[in-house]
C-alpha cells in the first residue's frame, strides 16, 4: 500500500515530474520503420508530450515538438526538406536539433530565427522500429538487446491500453499470477468455452526469487515437479528496467515493452524473434511482421482465451492509474515491492543530477545478451512453441503459419519431431554463457 502522494510520484510521467525525468533518460520504441517508409512524418505521443517523428532526407530520423513555435500548427503536417522539417503553415524550417533555419515571411536581415528553438529529441532505427530519446545530452547508447539484432523471424503485436505503464510493469515481477491467471483462470475459461488450456501454466510455484542485476530485476522460479537445476531457476529471465520484460523459451525470444504514452495510456508491444535452434536461415523479411492485438470483443468484454488477453484484462481493470492506496499486498508481492523501491532509488539519482545505474549504457556495443530461459517450464520445445503460437497473441499474426512452420522445420532438423529418434530435450546442450 502507498500513500496518494507516493502513488502519484511513481505514476506521473510528464515533463518536470520526478518519474518523468527518470524515464526521459531512456530510449523508447515509438513507431515501425515501415510506417515512416510509407509516409515520412508521424504523430507520436510519448511521456505526456506530443511530437512529430520524421524520416530525414538522408534516411535518418528526427523527433521534434508537434506544435510549431510560430503559431502552434502541427508539424506532423509539415514538409521533409534536405535540411530538416518545414512547417506546412508558414514554412518555418527546423533541423533535427530544433534549431530554426528559416522563417520565409520574415525580412532577410531579421535575426528573429536565432531566438527560436523547438524542443527536439533523438531518433534512431533498430530492429525494424524507430526509437526515440527525449532526455538530456549526452544521450546514452540505444541498447542493442539480443532479441532486436539476432537473426530470426520477427513478429510484433501491439496495442494501446488505457492504463498507466507502471501497473503493467508490476505484473512482470509477480510470478504467482502465472499459475492463477494463465493456469486456473485459463483452465476455467477453457471449461466454459470447450477447449483445453495449456497444462504447463498450471504448475504451482514452489520457490521464487528476485535478484537486482545490471539490467533490472532477474526473476527465478521453481515449479512443482521441477528442480533448481532447470532453466527457470538456474537462468531465470529479467524485468528490463524501466519498461520491458524479456521472456522466451522453446526457440522463442521476446521483449515485452510498455511504452508510457502519458499517465493513463501505454503502447504495449510484444516483440518476438522466432529463432529455434536447428535452422540457420529464416524466411526473408523486409520489416518485422506487425499487427494490432484485439483485447475487447464486439460486446466490449475482455478477450480472455489467450495469454496476453488475460494479462491485459488484469492490467486494464485495475483502473487507468491503479489506486495503490486501496491495495493489500503480501509477502508474495515482494517483487512488486522491490520494483517500486528500485524506481524510487533511480529517481533519487536523477534528481541529484546523476545518471541512472540500471540499464544505462554509455559504451558503444554491437549486442547485449540478456539472461533468459531456453528450456521453459520443462516442457517439450516444439509443444511449447506451438502452444505459444495458438494460445498467445501470435495467433493473430498474419504470419502464423510461417511461424509454426519455422518451429516444426527446426524440430525436424534437430530430429525431435514425433516419431523421430529421441534426442536430448535441450537442443543447446550446454547453455551458452552458463
Amino acid at each position, binding site marked *: 500500500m502507498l*500513500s496518494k502522494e507516493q502513488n502519484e510520484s511513481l505514476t506521473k510521467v510528464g515533463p518536470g515530474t520526478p518519474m518523468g525525468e527518470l524515464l526521459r533518460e531512456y530510449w523508447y520504441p515509438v513507431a515501425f520503420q515501415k510506417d515512416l517508409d510509407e509516409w515520412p512524418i508521424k504523430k507520436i505521443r510519448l511521456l505526456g508530450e506530443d511530437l512529430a517523428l520524421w524520416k530525414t532526407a538522408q534516411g535518418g530520423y528526427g523527433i521534434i515538438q508537434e506544435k510549431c513555435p510560430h503559431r502552434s500548427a502541427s508539424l506532423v503536417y509539415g514538409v521533409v526538406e534536405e535540411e530538416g522539417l518545414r512547417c506546412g503553415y508558414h514554412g518555418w524550417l527546423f533541423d533535427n536539433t530544433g534549431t530554426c533555419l528559416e522563417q520565409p515571411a520574415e525580412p532577410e536581415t531579421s535575426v528573429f530565427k536565432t531566438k527560436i528553438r523547438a524542443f527536439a529529441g533523438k531518433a534512431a532505427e533498430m530492429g525494424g522500429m524507430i526509437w526515440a530519446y527525449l532526455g538530456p545530452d549526452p544521450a546514452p547508447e540505444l541498447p542493442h538487446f539480443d532479441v532486436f539484432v539476432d537473426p530470426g523471424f520477427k513478429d510484433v503485436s501491439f496495442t494501446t491500453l488505457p492504463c498507466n505503464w507502471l501497473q503493467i510493469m508490476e505484473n512482470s515481477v509477480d510470478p504467482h499470477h502465472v499459475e492463477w491467471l494463465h493456469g486456473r483462470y485459463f483452465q476455467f475459461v477453457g471449461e466454459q468455452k470447450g477447449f483445453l488450456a495449456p497444462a504447463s501454466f498450471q504448475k504451482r510455484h514452489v520457490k521464487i526469487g528476485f535478484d537486482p542485476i545490471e539490467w533490472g530485476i532477474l526473476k527465478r522460479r521453481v515449479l512443482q515437479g521441477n528442480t533448481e537445476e532447470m532453466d527457470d531457476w538456474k537462468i531465470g529471465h529479467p524485468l528490463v528496467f524501466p519498461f520491458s520484460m524479456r521472456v522466451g523459451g522453446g526457440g522463442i525470444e521476446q521483449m515485452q515493452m510498455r511504452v508510457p504514452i502519458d499517465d493513463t495510456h501505454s503502447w504495449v508491444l510484444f516483440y518476438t524473434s522466432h529463432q529455434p535452434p536447428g535452422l540457420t536461415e529464416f524466411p526473408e523479411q523486409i520489416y518485422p511482421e506487425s499487427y494490432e492485438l484485439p483485447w475487447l470483443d464486439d460486446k466490449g468484454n475482455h478477450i480472455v482465451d489467450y495469454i496476453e488477453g488475460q494479462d491485459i484484462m488484469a492490467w486494464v481493470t485495475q483502473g487507468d492509474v491503479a489506486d495503490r492506496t486501496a491495495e493489500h499486498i503480501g509477502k508474495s508481492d515482494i517483487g512488486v515491492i522491490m520494483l517500486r523501491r528500485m524506481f524510487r532509488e533511480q529517481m533519487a539519482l536523477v534528481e541529484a543530477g546523476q545518471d541512472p545505474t540500471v540499464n544505462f549504457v554509455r559504451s558503444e556495443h554491437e549486442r547485449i545478451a540478456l539472461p533468459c530461459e531456453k528450456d521453459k517450464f520443462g516442457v517439450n520445445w516444439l509443444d511449447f512453441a506451438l502452444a505459444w503460437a495458438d494460445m498467445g497473441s501470435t495467433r493473430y499474426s498474419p504470419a502464423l503459419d510461417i511461424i509454426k512452420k519455422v518451429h516444426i522445420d527446426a524440430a525436424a532438423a534437430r530430429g525431435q519431431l514425433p516419431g523421430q529418434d529421441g534426442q536430448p530435450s535441450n537442443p543447446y546442450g550446454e547453455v551458452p554463457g552458463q
Partner: protein
Amino acid sequence: MKLKQPTPSDYPNHIESEEPVRGKRFTGVHWWDPDRLSHLDDLPRFCPNCGAAVVENGGISVEYWEAEQRIYHTWCHGCGWAGDITRVHRMTSHEAEH
C-alpha cells in the same frame, strides 16, 4: 474504447462516510478505507538508521501484510538504509516443549 468508471451507486454496500476518510480517498468509498488511514498513521516518519525524514527526503515506504503483521518495507534516500519496519502491539514468544 473508454471503459465506464464505477460510481458509488454501483456498489450495493456503498455507505457515505464523513470526514476525514473522504479527504484522503482516491476513488469511491470502500470497506477498506480505514486501512488507508492506518497506512498514513503508521507510515515510518524517520529512518531508523540516520534519522532523516523518509518520504520528505525522497525515500519510499511500501506497506504489505504478512499474517497479523503490517510491515513497511522502507528505503531511506539519506543513507541508503533499507529494511522492514513493523509496529509491535504484543510481544509473543513460543512455549518450549517440557
